[in-house]
């Protein structure tokens, strides 16, 4: 087997509980995004564009849809004879076997997989975030600093800092303090959950962490603080582009809306950094004489007969005549009947909204959500997200 300098381990077991009905049957990395993609497509495409061609994808929660989407990695060109993409669910061993207890434990349980490739460096990433990043530049910085570990960071508004893992760094970018969701943050540099490790350092840290019964086996809570306490060379790598954790209905909706600006901060139409995804193979979208579409993203297979403003339509979505869809997301195959008003809403995959329905409103605080496969009877009114 050819030696791999750097391999990636992609944590994709996230439950995404705060996404409510949207993650009822699928893991968070499999949640749809941007009219065509699933969240995990961004990190997988990043790997490929960064020259990382061995990726272990750690799955756990509701893996059915995710595993089907991933297949053997063909959409990303990761169906390789050597390396490529491997789906790594927890498995049963002679002495039992357990679920992945935490992010660190998930990697620990796959030490054997990593050893087979004998890498110098291991990149730990998660399938929960939307961003385009060249990990090769991260690796370069990591090498230049002779670091044991490098954590990618992004500046967040001070008001939000207490929601993240926050790093304080010195003038060389070396990490001096790390606090997971601090009440009183001393910095606004948030960890993006993207870590580059020297494999030897990581392996030792994982083994040690595993033997600590008090540990929650988590990178942010355990591995990084312990390494920092031991005086390891931890560096930050500042990322200045678009990055978003789409962990809640609001942030998922917002991130989709971000794509609709005339000069979006996350450019999907980028030939040098294509985001790959499994193709739904649908014909070109049909825009009827009665249609009017503005400030929106519309994917293949859609049929639009009504009005669509500032919205994202996934493949195979339909908007009937006389309907208005505004500030909303229609997931794959969602069907909106005639004379409906869909305002500030997310309509789930394959949901059917009958004629004359009103979903969401400008006044409502929350985004209205129609779950996957749900049917809304004609003339119904649905204002806010249903409690799960």
């Amino acid at each position, binding site marked *: 087997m050819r030696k791999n300098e750097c391999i990636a381990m992609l944590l994709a077991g996230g439950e995404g509980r705060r996404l409510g009905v949207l993650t009822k049957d699928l893991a968070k990395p499999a949640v749809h995004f*941007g*009219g*065509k993609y699933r969240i995990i497509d961004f990190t997988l495409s990043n790997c490929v564009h960064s020259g990382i061609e061995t990726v272990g994808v750690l799955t756990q929660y509701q893996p059915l849809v995710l595993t089907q989407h991933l297949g053997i990695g*063909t*959409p990303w060109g990761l169906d390789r004879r050597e390396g490529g993409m491997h789906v790594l669910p927890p498995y049963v061993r002679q002495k039992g076997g357990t679920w992945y207890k935490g992010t660190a434990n998930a990697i620990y349980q796959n030490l054997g997989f990593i050893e087979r490739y004998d890498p110098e460096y291991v990149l730990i990433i998660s399938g929960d975030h939307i961003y385009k990043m060249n990990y090769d530049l991260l690796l370069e910085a990591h090498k230049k600093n002779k670091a044991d570990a490098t954590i990618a960071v992004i500046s967040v508004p001070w008001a939000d800092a207490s929601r993240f893992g926050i790093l304080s760094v010195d003038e060389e970018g070396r990490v001096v303090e790390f606090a997971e969701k601090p009440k009183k943050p001393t910095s606004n540099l948030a960890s993006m959950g993207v870590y580059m490790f020297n494999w030897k350092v990581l392996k030792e840290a994982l083994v040690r962490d595993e033997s600590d019964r008090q540990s929650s086996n988590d990178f942010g809570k355990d591995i990084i603080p312990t390494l920092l306490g031991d005086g390891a060379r931890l560096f930050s790598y500042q990322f200045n582009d678009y990055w978003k954790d789409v962990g809640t209905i609001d942030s998922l909706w917002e991130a989709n809306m971000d794509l*609709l600006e*005339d000069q979006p901060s996350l450019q*999907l*139409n980028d030939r040098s950094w*294509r*985001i*790959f*995804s499994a*193709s739904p*193979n*649908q*014909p*070109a*979208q*049909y*825009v*009827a*004489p*009665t*249609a*009017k*579409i*503005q*400030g*929106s*993203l*519309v*994917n*293949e297979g859609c*049929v639009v007969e009504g009005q*669509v403003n500032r919205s*994202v*339509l*996934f493949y195979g979505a339909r908007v009937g005549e006389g309907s208005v869809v505004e500030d909303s997301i229609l997931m794959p195959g969602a069907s909106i009947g005639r004379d409906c008003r869909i305002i500030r809403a997310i309509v789930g995959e394959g949901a059917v909204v009958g004629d004359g329905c009103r979903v969401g409103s400008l006044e409502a605080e929350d985004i209205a959500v129609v779950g996957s496969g749900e049917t809304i009877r004609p003339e119904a009114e649905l204002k806010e997200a249903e409690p799960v």
Partner: protein
Amino acid sequence: MKLSMMGVINLIHEADEMEALTANRCLATVPFGGRYRLIDFVLSSMVNSGIPRVAVFAHRKFRSLMDHLGSGSNWDLHRKQSGLFVIPPSMEDQTDFGKGDLYHFYRNRDYFARSTVDYVVIARSHMVCNVDFAKVLEQHRETGADVTVVCKNSPEGMPGLARKAKVNGAGRIVEMQDHFGRLDSDIVSMEMYVLNKELLLDLVDTSLAQGRDHFVRHSILSRLEQLQVHAYMHEGVLGVVNNIAAYYRHSMELLQPDIWRELFFKPGSIYTKVKDEPPTHYRSGADVSHSLIANGCDIEGTVTNSILFRGVKVAKGAVVRNSIVMQNGVVGENGSLENCILDKEVEIRPMQQLKGSIEMPFIALKRKVI
């Protein structure tokens, strides 16, 4: 279900009057319907019908064909056994280009002989349709015909070049003529011939031995009395696309929702090479109606009654009417197009105006800057 039938898409001497659109490509790879190539329709039909083995007999200008088909993975034809076989012309020297298709069939008889299936369907690439060959084979077996030809009843006539057939009450074809013939009939041949593999090999050998080298003319048309040649009537959409008038008309027919739905979904989906384009961005100010828009477009202007392929950009103030803009075309600010067909990667500079007529659309060659 696997069908005991193999497919041949025969590109040898396809009737082609596509002018500029086939200047650098074969008829099979003429872009159609926003994201497809003509060959996708018959190829997808074969795959959806359960045909596990398809050969494409390439002839001329097949670089774009090789690029488009690749390993066949987009049609699920990248198989360990069977799958897709793209067979380049077998030639000793240049003069062999002029020889008929039977000559090439003969040279590639191994392809037929190696397979264990009983039946072969020989088709062309320029029939825009969605056909279930399992049903054709079923009828072929039931009638006990020697050859079954897929046909379409078309009383309103078609602009494309197609053979016509006369069928008797029992469904037997009693007369068939090339497109320039005077045969008075509404029945158009879709150039899909289902027959027993052994019979095909026999016809190849016999016809060649008689000094004849054209499959349809010499093996079928001249044997209508000896052979039981039956018609299978196709009920779905059909476009015979081998001249500009037909290309334009059948493209525009896709703007009728019934035809869009039937052609692309019934009985199966049409597959093509995946391009990984993002969804199309309609900017504020975009005004699109009655159009077919593929992925990756960026629209700020007006598009009416038109077809945009993948990655087309229509700038602010630009107007596109009754036109077809192929992949990566650019219509600059305040530019205007009416009744035009732009081949791939054509750029219309700002303020430029192009106008053709419905009968004779203006055609811009690939990569032209106007």
